[in-house]
């Protein structure tokens, strides 16, 4: 509004109230029009398919409204276990990414920007490689006669091959590797923005380095960490390829079960119901986490 006034008077034209109003409205519409493409995309590729998913999940075999798809999930314990596995894998992967990613991001943030860029390549290069290739690379490394086992046995670290893949261990190794950049990038960004003078000030006020880190640096880096962890956690929940290849059929996540139902029974209703439950469970978990950790600020940019 103020901008419109300034523009109007600068152009030297005499503006009536009505004209001003019109211009204001036009401006609002033009601002609004900026989000139209995004809005169309969201409606087309998120809202419509999602509504269809909900609709399908409540469709019975006879074509009418029915809860049978949801009822089936309570009949077999496997569904409960599959959801537990899904959340377990996602939480453990997120924790592994934090444990690996935080020190690395901290290290990168301390380097002069040019060197940080060089080291960042180590994070980004794998990120640009196909996910499938990386997953199979882990299979080659970790399997019974894989490079790691052969090497360790030659050096004498262990005598019989250790089972590193086709189980939860292999799945977590692969997932943590694939998810790591999603944690590091936002975290590194947040760390770069932390004013170095803060740490100097803390030292000046008598805090030792450890104290200064935990009481000043860490809280300031938290929004970046929370944002990164959330991305990792949510991506993990719907992950398919890595658990399918590295889990050896033992780590059954929701997405694997959806595939099994579709491939074997062509049952879109049952598969949709699984998707809906996962979506609801995810939303609920995020809501709970937001309440507990108060990370609305990190999520929505509110202070």
């Amino acid at each position, binding site marked *: 509004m103020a901008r419109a006034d300034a523009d109007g008077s600068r152009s030297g034209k005499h503006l009536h109230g009505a004209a001003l109003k019109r211009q204001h409205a036009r401006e609002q519409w033009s601002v609004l029009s900026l989000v139209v493409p995004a809005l169309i995309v969201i409606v087309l590729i998120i809202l419509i398919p999602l509504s269809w998913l909900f609709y399908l999940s409540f469709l019975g075999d006879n074509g009418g409204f029915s809860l049978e798809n949801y009822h089936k999930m309570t009949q077999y314990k*496997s569904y409960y276990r*599959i959801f537990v596995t899904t959340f377990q894998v996602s939480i453990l992967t997120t924790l592994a990414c934090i444990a690996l990613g935080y020190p690395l991001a901290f290290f990168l943030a301390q380097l002069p920007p040019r060197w940080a860029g060089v080291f960042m390549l180590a994070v980004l290069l794998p990120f640009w490689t196909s996910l499938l290739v990386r997953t199979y690379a882990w299979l080659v490394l970790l399997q019974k006669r894989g490079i790691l086992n052969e090497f360790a046995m030659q050096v004498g670290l262990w005598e019989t091959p250790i089972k590193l893949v*086709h189980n939860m261990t292999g799945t977590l190794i692969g997932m943590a590797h694939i998810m790591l950049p999603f944690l590091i990038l936002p975290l590194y960004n947040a760390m770069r923005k932390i004013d170095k003078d803060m740490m100097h000030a803390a030292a000046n006020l008598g805090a030792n380095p450890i104290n200064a880190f935990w009481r000043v640096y860490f809280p300031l880096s938290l929004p970046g960490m929370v944002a990164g962890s959330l991305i990792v956690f949510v991506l993990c929940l719907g992950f398919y390829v890595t658990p399918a290849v590295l889990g*050896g*059929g033992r780590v059954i996540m929701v997405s*694997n079960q959806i595939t*099994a139902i579709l*491939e*074997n029974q062509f049952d*879109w209703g049952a598969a949709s119901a699984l998707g809906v439950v996962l979506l609801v469970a995810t939303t609920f978990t995020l809501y709970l986490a937001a309440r507990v950790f108060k990370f609305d600020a990190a999520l929505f940019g509110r202070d």
Partner: protein
Amino acid sequence: MEIRTKLAAVVAASFAIGTAATAEPITVVSWGGSYGQAQDNALFNDASKNSGIEIIRESGASMSKACLQVESGAVTWDLVVTGSGGAAAAAAKGCLEKIDYSVVDVSDFYPNTYTDYCVGSDVFATVMAWNTDKYGAPGSDGAPNSWADFFNVEKFPGTRAYRANNVDGALEPALMADGVAPEDVYKVLATREGKERAINKIRELKPHIAVFWESGAMQAQLMKDGEVDMTTGWNGRFDNAKKDGATVGYTFNQALLDYDCFAMPKGAPNKDTAMAFLAEVSKAEYQANLPFHITYGPTNKKAYEVTTAPAELIRALPSHPDNVPFMVPVSLDWYAEHRAEALELYIEMLSE
């Protein structure tokens, strides 16, 4: 590959006389790996050339995708390769076009290798395969020879692999290992107790099952890498793994005899042309070439008469008259009725 097929077809079409030459190209969808390649070399390329029907070859055949195309009214596939069980399930869902047997000639086919909705393309067997370095060559003294051996980890210590995410061919071996006669397997499996008996047998073996396989390519890879000592799987994949240097052998004893087939999604865009191509590709002369590329047997009996493949290759085919008596034919009726329940029980056991 696609382009070459197309080119060949275009060249052939320009010489061919008749209505087929002017028809639209049809889309033929198969699986990846050594299977799709074998079909290209044995069946599709020559059938396309000789009939003048241009084909577009795609991979990633799946009855669930075919059904989705049908349900959403956007069918782009004309002929799709599928397992017999998948075709039966898709037909029950109303996703498939009826085969016109006035066009496709199956008079020389083995019985039970075609249905109203699909035409058999090859016969394969679900077998037990093992590392021959560890347990000896098939047929040698002390080598495993029955499903009871597969489930016996005291007599044959080592790791196993079994099917993941899919119950097809998973329960029958367990029952046979538990002492059920091959001819009674489907009778026992028709009851809930029978299914649970099979599942319990697999549950016992589970601590020794190192990997659950998801595909034929994975069966071959597991044996090539020596990741497991014994696995279930499809015979042709192991022969190809052996060609690649894997020390693997298998037996047809108590194996499950099954077939793959061609099905047509309901409302296929080029139904008539595709039916003509199906008729062409089902001829004995093409199926006769299959043994050169993968050890899956023909569904057309006459292929045995016209094939130029050497005797030992022929003898190794699952549908060879000498091998069939040892095997258990897969019951499509059982799968149509019990597959859904069996799958739930199987996944229940897997998720434990």
